[in-house]
């Protein structure tokens, strides 16, 4: 089936997630959709699969204009999407999941479905036991189940959102073989990814999104360099880095290992000096978030030691870390950082050491007003935090931090903020560094990483580079490492 997207626009509040995107995908092709986090890939795919409606624009399937009302409607029209986290029902059996999306009828027609399931599985050489429970399957196998299900429901356009995250190399081979087979059968396959090597190995056509716009298309043969340039823009002048004075080491990681259900980060050793800024680069879910939370004491490590100051804090809770002067600022400000429904004054009172049993409201209000002025927060002490804009919420979070701090961990400190707020926030962070606070931060903005870090760690599916002096890095080099290429040079250079 041929897919055409015409002039697709979508805004979320002030964010223009898709800006007039035009893209044609002929039947029988594997189309790569490439872009950084937040480039608008997911939004575009959600529009096509009926999860959200575009503000403007048209979708044509086989030259016929269609309106897609819901995911169920999408599959009726032949469009199926495979999500990054499989949307299945772990406590149920494989065959029940397979049947679930079927339309109409009280009886499920188990017997027929079983035969169809076996036939399809054979066709793609997937070995799935229809009676196994889904929670006993690996992510890769759950993907296979989802592919079979969508095809059985009649999907002729298949969208894969970051399908290679969290699956084994062997499963990836199988997946790619299946995708090629789908294309041979005349289906349109959309492969959304930020991994250059996967896109290169698979896609004949590539479209690159950046900041909501389609910035370029490439047909094979194309080079990595072309794609990286399109993804991150041409080299942009990076201002002076103004490195901070580096005192003795304050944090030492010794062979630290941490893992979650899909990722392992193993044997990382790192010494962080006082006042140093370390940027953690990598595409979302490459392990940098897990790593950061482990050093903050929010995720238990599975091996190695974490030493902060001169205390071994391995295995201690976040609150113990906090007492040692560690602070963590999460990316999701309203979900994890602030308490919706409480006012700024109430937040400042909570953030300070509680003195006495009763709250001194007048003092709290004065403190709030002072910090609001200091940090340029546009709001009053009586405002609830959810009524503030994103930039002001981030300023408020910074204003809530206690002084002094040994170490500050930030997840995407300036995501979604305008340039003015970004510069302001980093100037405040740099002030902290001058006073000896070390900063570790995760960001998907490569310029931000290069601009503000003294050293950089790059993450790719759980692998970590040794600390790289950011002065020796370029955006292109960083982009390659993030996409998983150029790692061989790194190790050979290190061993040399």
């Amino acid at each position, binding site marked *: 089936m041929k897919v055409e997207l015409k002039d697709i626009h979508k805004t979320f509040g002030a964010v223009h997630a898709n800006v007039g995107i035009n893209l044609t995908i002929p039947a029988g092709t594997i189309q790569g959709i490439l872009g950084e986090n937040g480039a608008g890939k997911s939004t575009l795919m959600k529009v096509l699969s009926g999860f959200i409606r575009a503000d403007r624009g048209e979708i044509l399937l086989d030259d016929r204009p269609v309106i897609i009302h819901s995911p169920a409607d999408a599959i009726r029209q032949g469009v199926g999407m495979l999500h990054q986290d499989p949307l299945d029902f772990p406590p149920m059996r494989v065959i029940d999941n397979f049947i679930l999306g079927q339309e109409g009828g009280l009886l499920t027609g188990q017997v027929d479905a079983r035969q169809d399931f076996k036939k399809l599985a054979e066709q793609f050489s997937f070995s799935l036991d229809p009676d196994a429970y889904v929670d006993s399957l690996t992510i890769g196998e759950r993907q296979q189940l989802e592919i079979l299900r969508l095809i059985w429901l009649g999907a002729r356009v298949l969208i894969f959102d970051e399908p290679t995250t969290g699956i084994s190399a062997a499963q990836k081979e199988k997946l790619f073989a299946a995708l090629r087979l789908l294309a041979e059968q005349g289906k349109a396959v959309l492969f959304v990814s930020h991994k250059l090597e996967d896109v290169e190995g698979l896609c004949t056509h590539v479209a690159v999104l950046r900041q909501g716009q389609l910035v370029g298309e490439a047909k094979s043969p194309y080079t990595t360099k072309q794609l990286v340039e399109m993804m991150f823009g041409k080299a942009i002048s990076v201002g002076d880095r103004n490195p901070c004075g580096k005192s003795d080491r304050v944090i030492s990681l010794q062979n630290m290992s941490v893992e979650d259900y899909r990722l392992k980060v193993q044997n990382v050793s790192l010494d962080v000096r006082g006042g140093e800024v370390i940027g953690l680069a990598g595409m979302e879910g490459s392990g940098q978030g897990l790593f950061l939370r482990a050093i903050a004491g929010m995720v238990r490590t599975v091996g190695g030691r974490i030493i902060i100051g001169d205390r071994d804090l391995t295995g201690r809770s*976040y*609150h113990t870390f*906090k007492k040692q002067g560690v602070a*963590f600022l*999460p990316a999701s400000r309203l*979900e*994890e*950082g*602030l*308490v*919706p*429904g*409480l006012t700024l004054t*109430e*937040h400042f*009172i*909570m*953030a300070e050491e*509680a003195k*006495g*049993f*009763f*709250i001194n*409201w007048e003092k709290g209000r004065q403190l709030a007003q002072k910090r609001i002025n200091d940090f340029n927060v546009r709001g009053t002490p009586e405002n609830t935090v959810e009524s503030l804009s994103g930039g002001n919420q981030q300023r408020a979070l910074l204003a*809530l931090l206690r002084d002094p701090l040994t170490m500050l961990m930030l997840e995407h400190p300036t995501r979604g903020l305008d340039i003015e707020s970004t510069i302001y926030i980093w100037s405040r962070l740099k002030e902290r560094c001058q006073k000896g606070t070390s900063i570790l931060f995760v960001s998907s903005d490569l310029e931000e990483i290069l601009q503000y870090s003294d050293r950089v760690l790059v993450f790719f599916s759980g692998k970590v580079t040794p600390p790289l002096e950011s002065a020796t890095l370029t955006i292109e080099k960083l982009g390659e490492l993030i996409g998983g290429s150029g790692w061989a040079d790194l190790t050979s250079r290190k061993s040399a």
Partner: protein
Amino acid sequence: MKKNAWINIGFQVGALFLALLITTLLLVAAGAPPLKAYASILSGAFGSLNNVEQILITWSPLLLTTAGVLITFSAGLWNIGIEGQMTLGAIFATGVLRLLQNTQLPAALIIILGIFGGMVGGAVWASLAGALKTFGGVNEIFGGLGLNFVSTALTIYLVFGPWKRPGVGSMSGTQPFDQKLWLPTLPHTELSLWALGMSLLVIVVVFFLLRGTHFGLRLKAVGKNPKAAFLMGVPTWQYSMFAFLLCGAFAGLSGAIQVTSVYHRLLPNISNGYGFLGLLVAMLINYQALWAAPIAFFFAALNIGSVQLQIQYKLDSSFAGVLQDLLVLLVLLGEGARQRFFRKV
């Protein structure tokens, strides 16, 4: 801001009228003249001094359960188990009184110990629901509901088993205590100023706890966003657990008061729905402790007043419950509608 407040009040008054309208239709359908029925509720509640006493006697346990659930609601917990916690308060109080009634201890001390025992009993029962929630991942609604059934069974077992009256056990409860173990009441009435005083004290304490203390603020933060509260340094599960303990202690106090000042014995269904009614009051006042006393009083008056409906019109006295439930339902519904239609205001 001002406009917002008026819209709020408008929706609440609207809900009240709608609740009255539906109740009126139900009265008509049941064959009772609505206006006269309302008049009889009113006279049933305030027609005589005796009736007002009855209201005050009902008010006291209701205030305590409301105070308790205000604490757990602030922590984001639905403590449905409050009925059981009240029952365990009654059981523990009865147990302490039975244990000490034949000793040489002064009666006043025995009563105080009994009341204290009731609070401990309620807190212990609440801590079970809390532990199930915190360590076992059992939703407090299910845990609490299950424990309510267990508490009922325990009462029946005690009344017909180990604590049965001399001779044969009966649904009317255990052997009443000697009058010296009764909480002092006003002469010629069953109204105990001690019970009323304790209840009012508790609701005032809860008001200040939630309004003006670090503990209350952190509890609210845990209720509204546990993740952020944790990051800000609040030990979240300890706070949840403490909210359960506090609520259980208040519910236990309420049960102990029923034993020491109203029934003077343990009987089945001693919690009498006050726990659930307290939940309704807390929802109706949108968790603002300031309004707990008047609204609980209003509910108590409805309960007492509607007894007249049964006498005069042979309607079931649970008609008060219908009006109360409708009121809560419609106020919540109105709140939902307001948020939907006036989101931008």
